[in-house]
């Protein structure tokens, strides 16, 4: 399958590439190397610019006011948006907007008024509360947060961990066990307002990312009404699972974008740097590292666009998304590692973005389902779904 961009796609890619190089990278040079946010005045100015480009809210479906760009093109653009220092986790510092949590599009009309539309207007932010201290890779079995029936509603008790943005969000989507006897068929998805009594953000969880932190949450007799159930009772896992699969494509695209940026830096450095009277680029050891980078990037790009193409056509893409996520996160990590090696000592410093990418790229092999889970998904496909 040919994944070369069409002329229309190339035009959009060029537009985003220019935006990253002319707007984001110069601004980024003035920020702390670990910064994840722009000064408010720059954010506002650049958001106006992406709106004028017609690319704001790129992930928002057309019927909700999005720019109607298909997922393959969006994936190509996501690869471009990530090509700067903060790009892996904060592509273009959020100036292209976003659709928020995919699940909230499943909300009923009342919930859409209260949560979806304010989110799309940028008035509300949300967190995704799935992972628990008991585990994140197998949420269907690991979820211990309980929701018990009481007074036309539910009482939540339990804890969540590694939850991004819960301290800043106005609401979150929280998965809790509503029927202990049913495994994955006993999980329900709730919308929880951050000011609900009994909802607590207990602490910051520091990670390799200095720029950003996760949080640990506690639900202590946290009562929510029936109106806060997202979807149907005991059918929350399907909501979570769909999101986890879809999210793997842009997740992979971010890894590819950063890998391309690191690779380009390494090529430039290899052509410029002389040691023992010879350019690095003339040394076979360095050439082979660059070749391996090229292969990792092309492979990841191919499989990621293949997954996006299947998603675009509306056919099952779970296996392809798993392959894409696996190839891009592992290959991206290797590319950044080799780029650091080629740069030598400078590659380890905060003067260059490589050290930040190195730390953040390591997280990508665990986030959104670790490599082992992706391999498990692929193994089920090739060996048969009845395997345990």
């Amino acid at each position: 399958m040919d994944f070369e961009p069409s002329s229309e796609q190339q035009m959009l890619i060029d537009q985003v590439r220019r935006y990253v190089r002319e707007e984001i990278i110069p601004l980024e040079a003035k920020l702390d190397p670990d910064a994840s946010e722009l000064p408010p005045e720059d954010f506002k100015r650049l958001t106006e610019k992406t709106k004028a480009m017609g690319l704001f809210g790129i992930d928002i479906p057309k019927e909700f006011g999005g720019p109607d760009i298909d997922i393959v093109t969006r994936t190509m653009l996501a690869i471009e948006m990530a090509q700067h220092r903060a790009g892996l986790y904060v592509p273009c510092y959020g100036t292209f907007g976003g659709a928020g949590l995919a699940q909230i599009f499943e909300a009923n009309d009342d919930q859409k008024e209260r949560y979806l539309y304010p989110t799309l207007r940028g008035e509300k932010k949300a967190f995704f509360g799935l992972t628990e201290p008991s585990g994140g890779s197998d949420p269907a079995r690991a979820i211990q947060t309980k929701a018990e029936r009481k007074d036309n509603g539910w009482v939540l008790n339990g804890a969540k961990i590694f939850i991004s943005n819960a301290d800043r969000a106005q609401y979150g989507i929280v998965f809790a066990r509503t029927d202990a006897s049913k495994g994955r068929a006993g999980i329900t998805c709730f919308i929880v307002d951050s000011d609900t009594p009994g909802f607590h953000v207990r602490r910051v969880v520091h990670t390799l990312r200095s720029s950003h932190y996760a949080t640990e949450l506690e639900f202590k007799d946290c009562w929510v009404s029936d109106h806060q159930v997202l979807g149907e009772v005991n059918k929350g896992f399907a909501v979570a699972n769909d999101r986890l699969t879809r999210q793997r494509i842009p997740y992979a695209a971010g890894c590819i974008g950063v890998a391309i940026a690191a690779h380009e830096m390494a090529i430039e450095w290899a052509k410029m740097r002389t040691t023992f009277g010879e350019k690095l680029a003339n040394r076979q050891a360095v050439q082979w590292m660059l070749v391996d980078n090229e292969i990792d990037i092309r492979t990841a790009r191919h499989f990621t666009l293949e997954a996006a193409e299947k998603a675009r056509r509306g056919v099952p893409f779970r296996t392809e998304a798993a392959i894409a996520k696996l190839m891009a996160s592992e290959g991206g990590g290797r590319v950044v590692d080799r780029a650091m090696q080629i740069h030598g000592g400078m590659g380890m410093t905060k003067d260059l973005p490589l050290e930040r990418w190195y730390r953040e790229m390591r997280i990508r092999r665990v986030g959104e389902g670790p490599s082992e889970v992706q391999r498990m998904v692929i193994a089920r496909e090739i060996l048969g779904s009845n395997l345990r």
Partner: protein
Amino acid sequence: MSIRLRLDKPWRPLTHEEATRLPGQLGVYQIADAAGTVLYIGQAGARAPFGLRSELQREASERGPGCQFRIEVNMQYRSRWFELLMVHRADHGALPPDNARNPPPVLGRLSPA
């Protein structure tokens, strides 16, 4: 495993001499008045020429005598800085006065147990 949310090291006098003895590493710091009331929570990021040392030297020059400080060397200086600000606000109901004058654009809420 205990998780340390608050800085609880002894205060040191904020003087140029004391600041000069600090490591040139990344990290966070607090400035307090003579009574130990926290006035400011700062970070020494990678743009600081000598990390904590140069940041505290600058603080000493700008604030003059009568203040105290304490530091924490921390590579996660940004997320730790946000954490200290949120914990302070949870404990005292407000940011330290010198942070309140120029708060970070978005600061979360924390309710530590």
